[in-house]
């Protein structure tokens, strides 16, 4: 198929960006979206132009590096996938596709489609861990039975890949789905109880400090999340915060 791409180009974080049009031809429907971008970039390199910079790494939907906003949706029109798993069969010959970076005050653009997600790092550093020494001198793993239900729910929350699609999608640029998932993983497990109150308070305080917006229960984040992280995690985080505050 032949396509027109409207892509956000921005030299660096200080430069003013703009949308630029490109044409690509003979795109196979079996290509992934990023392979289509590879084709474009090969074309640009061969004609001496600078290729479009975009983040990507594992290309199997787990590292959370890729981050495009495609036709007004984080990770594009398919559900439950990252951009690297999005396939061109979702598009038609002759389509025009708009490609922008994830936009949020707390995710400044570094170049073209690449954004800075260090705000997520600092939130995790504020409390996204259990304070246990990595000495190996812990108790036997099976001395602490955990109900299958709790373990499964914690696993569902822990599935978050930290890509930031929830933030990019939210009209308030809220990071609550991301933070809620991490808080929930530990809140659901007995190992996480000791530090639960401090954890949620510190992580939420850092989230606010980074300039993420608040949650108004629109639920768009849940729809666009490539890993199906549920809104329940936001409710649980609020409950944990309430519990920690009284």
């Amino acid at each position, binding site marked *: 198929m032949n396509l027109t791409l409207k892509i956000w180009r921005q*030299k*660096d974080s200080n430069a003013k960006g703009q949308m630029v049009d490109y044409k690509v031809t003979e795109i*196979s429907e079996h*290509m*992934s979206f*990023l*392979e289509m971008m*590879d*084709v474009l970039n090969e074309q*640009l*390199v061969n004609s*001496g*132009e*600078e*290729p479009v910079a975009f*983040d990507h*790494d*594992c*290309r*199997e*939907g*787990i*590292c*959370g590096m890729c981050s495009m906003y495609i036709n007004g949706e984080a990770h594009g029109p398919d559900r439950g996938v990252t951009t690297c*798993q999005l*396939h061109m*069969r979702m598009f038609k010959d002759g389509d025009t596709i708009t490609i922008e970076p994830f936009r949020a005050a707390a995710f400044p653009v*570094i*170049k073209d489609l*690449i954004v800075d*997600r260090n705000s997520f*790092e600092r939130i*995790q*550093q*504020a409390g*996204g*861990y*259990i304070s*246990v020494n*990595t*000495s*190996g001198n*812990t*108790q*036997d*793993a*099976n001395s602490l*039975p*955990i*109900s*299958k239900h709790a*373990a499964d729910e*914690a*696993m569902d929350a*822990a*599935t978050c*890949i*930290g890509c930031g699609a929830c933030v990019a999608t939210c009209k308030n640029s809220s990071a609550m789905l991301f933070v809620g998932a991490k808080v929930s993983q530990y809140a659901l*497990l007995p*190992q996480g109880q000791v530090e639960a109150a401090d954890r949620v308070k510190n992580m939420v305080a850092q989230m606010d400090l980074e300039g993420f917006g608040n949650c108004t229960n629109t639920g768009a984040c849940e729809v666009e999340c490539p890993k199906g992280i549920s809104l329940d995690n936001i409710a649980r985080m609020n409950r944990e915060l309430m519990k920690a505050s009284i």
Partner: protein
Amino acid sequence: MALDSKVPKGPIKDKWTDYKNKINLVNPANKRHIDVIVVGTGLAGGSASATLAELGYNVKAFAYQDSPRRAHSIAAQGGINAAKNYQGDGDSTYRLFYDTVKGGDYRSREANVYRLAEVSANIIDQCVAQGVPFARDYGGLLDNRSFGGVLVSRTFYAKGQTGQQLLLGAYSAMNRQIARGKIEMFNRHEMLDVVIVDGKARGIIARNLITGEIERHSAHAVVVASGGYGNVYFLSTNAMGSNVTAGWKIHKKGAYFANPCYTQIHPTCIPRSGDYQSKLTLMSESLRNDGRIWVPKNMDDVLAIREGKKKPTDLSEAERDYYLERRYPAFGNLVPRDVASRAAKERCDAGYGVNATGEAVYLDFASAITRYGTEQAKIHNINNPSDAKIYELGQKIVEAKYGNLFQMYEKIVDQNPYETPMMIYPAVHYTMGGVWVDYNLMTTIPGCYCIGEANFSDHGANRLGASALMQGLADGYFVLPYTIGDYLADDIRTGKISTETPEFEAAEKEVKDRIDFFVNNKGTKSVDYFHKKLGKVMWDKAGMSRNEAGLKEAMAEIKAIREEFWKEVSVPGGSDELNPELEKAGRVADFLELGELFAKDALMREESCGGHFREESAEESGPQKGEAKRDDVNFAFAAAWEYKGEPADAVLHKEELEFNDIELKQRSYK
């Protein structure tokens, strides 16, 4: 220099304990004055950074991604082995040790493997304490599954995302230390050289990938944990950015590179579909617990399927060739990876491949779905369930076990694997070879360590499933933190290492000159052009099966590609900005050297062992006809190569492998 593996004396089961009792320690007050650089933040680098920081050292950690959590360990799916014997099925430290040495086709170092098996149980305890949500049974205890090449269930897992959960565990431990200021994290940085002062590794030169700035970082020791080099094949299951650069740079500065030809070609990957393809996707080996691998028995059916006239589900049991069950009745679909891959290639080379390219076999879940469905019907007291009901119940169980893998397959191939068998084909996945290290995990450069997939030590010529995660975390959490202390004990009075020295100056200049060359070279071809060309040579001539003539051609062809690369490569953009093409150029330049050494190593090793199959060395008759034939008299050694300029001039050093606790036998899975 003679290779000294520094394996402690004494019985194998006491070596590690005795060693720990006798090494030098650094007191906590002195640790505060010692800096350690860790390159890479996957399971090995992440766990090492966290533990070293916890012990009190000042750690500087480097990752080329925007967060340590994105290192490619995250993509590991199936699980992690540990000799816990929770299932009471006869597992033990010795048995895990034995399986790993046998699985590696007797080409690993016994003492290292025993130590790995010994600390494996601690890893699970550690990870549970950190909040890693492993799968559990209804009693609340940890669940296990089985992997290829073993007869027990010792694999712990978190759905199909075990690597992700273990890495997030290590990442959380890192975050705790980053918050305390004990780890200084350098995201979006790439190590481009090691700096050696007075014969010791004392720092690195790194490039800030956002600004392009070249930075000098000093430390008392350097740890390389940069993963494997499977991307030398261009197409692999590795991440796009996975590279050999850190390992290759230390090789060029004196670290020997061992067994580069030991590559794991994983049997269950999604087949390639076209020339545009950028990478291959793995379908976890855990699927072979329940999936059965087959191709049609009759050529007519193969052709009918390729032409779309028949569907795989149209074929009766009698018309299918479950070739692994046929050839290897004892292990069946759970033979080790190298064996399963070669068997798939054998069928496809004979013309039985089931897709348009002729390079695909089926992985079928219909039997498992029926088996689980029947069991569920019994559990739920459903009498005379219909086939549809059984299918529905069974599908739920399979979905709970492998749901994310099935979804991934469906998104890529656009077929529903619950209804039609998956198509799979082998692909490059892991490299057992790597930087040579002694028992302390130190390279032949004093003060320079190498851990995880980047080193060569534990998997011999073939790695068993669920052992990579085990090795990464064992090295980082439990081995390196001891061994590095023994070395650093001599450095308590050294003080801060200055970066204003001629050694740093020279290393920085070398790095800058190369970058300047790339951005100024007016070539005509993209980096990917050369990378793809290299990958094709590697796959065709140094892939799943190798022979003397092909390997000689490969060496010559790779050299020619390298020469053309240095004339014709074109890198747009500048050096003082974010420039992904420039990053790729540096990595491919190193792959072009490694590739030739790889072929040279494969040519030297005139035996078949593990993932390295030399066509000249196969069993000619008897029950093992066609299977790999090892040559223990002449090749029971690790091949450590010393850099001498051109890869073809590398000098071989042999570390003879002694097997005192395991009898050398032919590896049979029949």
